């Protein structure tokens, strides 16, 4: 009887013991999704200084038109203003928002309410699982202009302005941090998204060189996936003519110059893509120097009868911006850059204040590009000349809450 029982019991018992040993040896704790977070984002400094792009005086004149107006108040304009001006710039007029005010608009809900009114929902909200996300343009049909216009654009701007991860965010109830925003952004990311550019920029600034993570659906995302996502999309398709993807690739590449973890395959693919784009830009550049939305067509893209000045400045400004940070080996000849930059400068100086205000967000990319090509950020240029330049006249005296719809980016 005992032998019979033992013959039935011993093998399963041995199996169970082995499994228990395995369980306690390997451990049960789940590896955290985001294991290494840089406290401060990577610094991506402009490597070029091309004096033919614009003189210091011309830059200042151009920037004087790009000061962040608060009339109307609009989150998209404020985030672009913060991105352009960084955290240094100060303006004399009360109707203009200083860099600190622009940042406080996002980091302090009280300031946000001061600009938008107490009835406006907060720009950052807690999710059901305790994460922190930005209120998005499509979340509701109301209060759209106080929301974030693109997925993770606020986080990307924090990264671009050197905001550390432990920076607190004062919410309407309680407190959060930029770190929570970053963690949610990565957990919420998936490869089926339409908008991923700003998430990749945020990842490159804050999370890289961590090469992989798991999103909240259990899928593993790798940096190679991100490169493939940017490169494999058709050129010209996406927000701002798909040009933020190029910016994302450049930021990732420049971060990798410091971290050195990108695989050879991804690095080569990335550089090859940027070089291909440059080839198209050379062929597609108009005689005046600007590019149109049809630039992916190469020479055939020179003609775009439907292109407005807005389209031309949007495309040219974005192109110059990513090129300003890109390595030399993937850039078009300097002559093409200078021609585009001179056209951009002239257009900004000549454009009407109304049109500038209507398309403030997209046009800040052009302004920033010109500064980057002079090896500086806009805030630096501005503050250098602040002492000798007269204060800029304001458009309107009082801020008001946005009512009329604006064409988005």
């Amino acid at each position, binding site marked *: 009887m005992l032998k019979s029982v033992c013959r039935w019991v*011993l093998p399963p018992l041995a*199996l169970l013991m082995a499994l228990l040993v395995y369980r306690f040896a390997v451990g049960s704790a789940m590896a955290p999704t985001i294991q290494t977070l840089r406290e401060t984002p990577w610094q991506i400094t402009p490597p070029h200084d091309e004096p033919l792009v614009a003189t210091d005086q011309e830059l200042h004149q151009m920037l004087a038109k790009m000061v962040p107006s608060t009339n109307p108040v609009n989150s998209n304009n404020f985030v672009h203003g913060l991105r352009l001006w960084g955290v240094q710039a100060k303006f004399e007029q009360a109707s203009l928002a200083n860099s600190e005010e622009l940042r406080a608009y996002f980091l302090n809900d009280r300031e946000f309410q001061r600009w938008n009114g107490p009835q406006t929902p907060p720009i950052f909200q807690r999710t059901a699982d305790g994460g922190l996300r930005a209120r998005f343009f499509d979340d509701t049909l109301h209060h759209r202009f106080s929301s974030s216009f693109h997925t993770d654009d606020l986080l990307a701007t924090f990264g671009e302005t050197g905001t550390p991860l432990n920076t607190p965010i004062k919410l309407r109830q309680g407190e959060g941090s930029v770190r929570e925003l970053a963690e949610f952004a990565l957990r919420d990311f*998936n490869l089926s998204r*339409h908008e991923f550019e700003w998430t990749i920029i945020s990842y490159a600034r804050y999370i890289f060189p961590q090469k992989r993570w798991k*999103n*909240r*659906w*259990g899928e593993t995302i790798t940096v190679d996936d991100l490169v493939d996502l940017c490169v494999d999309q058709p050129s010209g398709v996406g927000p701002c003519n798909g040009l933020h993807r190029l910016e994302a690739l450049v930021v990732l590449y420049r971060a990798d110059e410091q971290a050195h973890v990108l695989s050879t395959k991804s690095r080569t693919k990335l550089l090859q893509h940027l070089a291909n784009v440059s080839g198209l830009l050379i062929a597609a550049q108009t005689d005046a120097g600007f590019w149109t939305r049809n630039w992916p067509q190469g020479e055939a893209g020179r003609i775009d009868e439907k292109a407005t000045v807005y389209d031309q400045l949007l495309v040219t400004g974005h192109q110059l911006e990513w090129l300003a940070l890109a390595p030399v080996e993937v850039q078009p000849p300097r002559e093409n850059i200078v021609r585009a930059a001179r056209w951009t400068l002239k257009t900004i100086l000549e454009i009407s204040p109304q049109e500038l205000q209507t398309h403030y967000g997209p046009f800040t990319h052009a302004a920033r590009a010109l500064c980057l090509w002079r090896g500086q950020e806009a805030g630096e240029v501005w503050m250098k000349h602040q002492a000798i330049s007269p204060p800029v006249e304001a458009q309107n005296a009082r801020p008001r809450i946005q009512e009329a719809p604006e064409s988005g980016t």
Partner: protein
Amino acid sequence: MTYDTTLVETLEHKSEREALPACLTRDNLSPEYFPACTRSQLALVVTLCLVFGWICFHKLNHTDLWGHLNFGRWMATHGALPAMDPFAAEPGEQAIVHSAWLSQLLGYETIATLGLEGLVLGHALLATLGVGILIAAIRQRGVPLAWAIAGGVAYYLLSLPIVGTIRPQLFGMVGAPLVLLACSYLPEKRHPLIWLPITFALWANLHGSFVMGLVMLGVCCVGVTWRIFGETGGLKPTAFDVRCVRMWAALGLSVVASSFNPQGPALLTNVLSFGHHSALADISEWRALSVASLSGGLFYTSLAVLLVMFKISPKRWEMRDLLLAIVFGLATITAMRMLAWWAVIWPWVFVPYLAAYWQARFGTNETPAPATTMRTLQATGFVFMTILISPATNNLLLNQPRGIGTIGGSDTPIYVADEIARRKLSGAFFAPMDWSDYLVWEQPAGFRPLAYSHVHLLGDDIWQDHQQIAGGSGEWLALADKHKLKYLVISMDRNKQLAQQVSRYSRQPKSRATVLYQDRKAVLVQLKSQVTPTASVSEASQ
């Protein structure tokens, strides 16, 4: 430990060898307290482990899984069975046939307790159990274990299109081999008269395929009766033959046991009429078998091989086997879905003939190798490695569940479902039929599909309208208004024309459609209710 074999080898007389104590004649490593395994038994363990492990790598196909889990959740929450469709935006008048309530409830309790990995584990266990029981059933027909294992493998490969998908029918894929096991024992043994009715009592609550089990059993009864008639030569001796009585008693008890379900004996007729709903004509597995398909290829190849083996095997063919082949062969030709049952009966019928043919043609008189403890250790080690390698068991052991993005089928609409749940949307919606189940699972509070996987509960007109919308009909907006749809969840891959129509319409100045969410796989559109009833046709066509 070794021992000196010199003494044993020098003995000449058998009686002297037999007088030696066992510790001198047994193999080196077989203690009495640890079981020994033959080579075939080790092969059996390895085979079952491979089946289990392979199934664990399958994804949770969303074909109707989430629909069943929705029902399970409803039952667990309400503590009752739903009388009518509780999910559809416009429930049909048809009462629900509760043939799978127990599997739906078990499925829900599994996911509630063990998560998604629990579902995968359950899937693997059921599939492995089915293979194991069928092997036992074939073995019971007097076939060497090695051949029975081969039959089990053949069953698994034939039924892979069905067994590879998690669904309540998997319980039927355990029940059917149990029926064949009972038929292997009957009519000589009596014990199936006890456990077979219990099997049917459970099966009738787990899945409507218990009818297939009754058909199998009935065909076997006819076949055995024919055989006994051939032996006795008269009707009366046949009728009173104890073997005949056992067979028909098993069938009678099983039919009675099948009545132990919420609908009682009426379940039988309800299940039989299930396949006649017009919506099922649009579901591929309910269509006739196509020769050009994988399922068709598997079926016709296996049929041809069976016919050849009937002819050339020295084993005399039995009426029972022939009838099973005819009945289930014809059934499979009429509906692809029946391949699952053909896959069960085919090895049980085929392998004894093959084994007899093989023995006659190539048989040897070699003595099989003795059972050893080492093989038991190897088997245990194999089971251990299988548990470690199989994702479901390893992740449950380490408490590291994979997410739905990894376990779910690639077409499961996880992102758009997440967005719907985040926004807490409620109201009637259109979505591809198989997506609706998952969307309701993620957002159960008031998010009601026009159509979901339980199409047999829908009115014919609703199903037709759903198909028209899905196909991108020019009348899509009018149909949406007709059914008061608030949302459209459009697949970019499968509803291309609809996506284009809606996209064009949403950009019109007075459009009632707003895109709430979009990714590369899906678009979520909100429709405002129309102002005037006649507005919708002209609106969409502009």
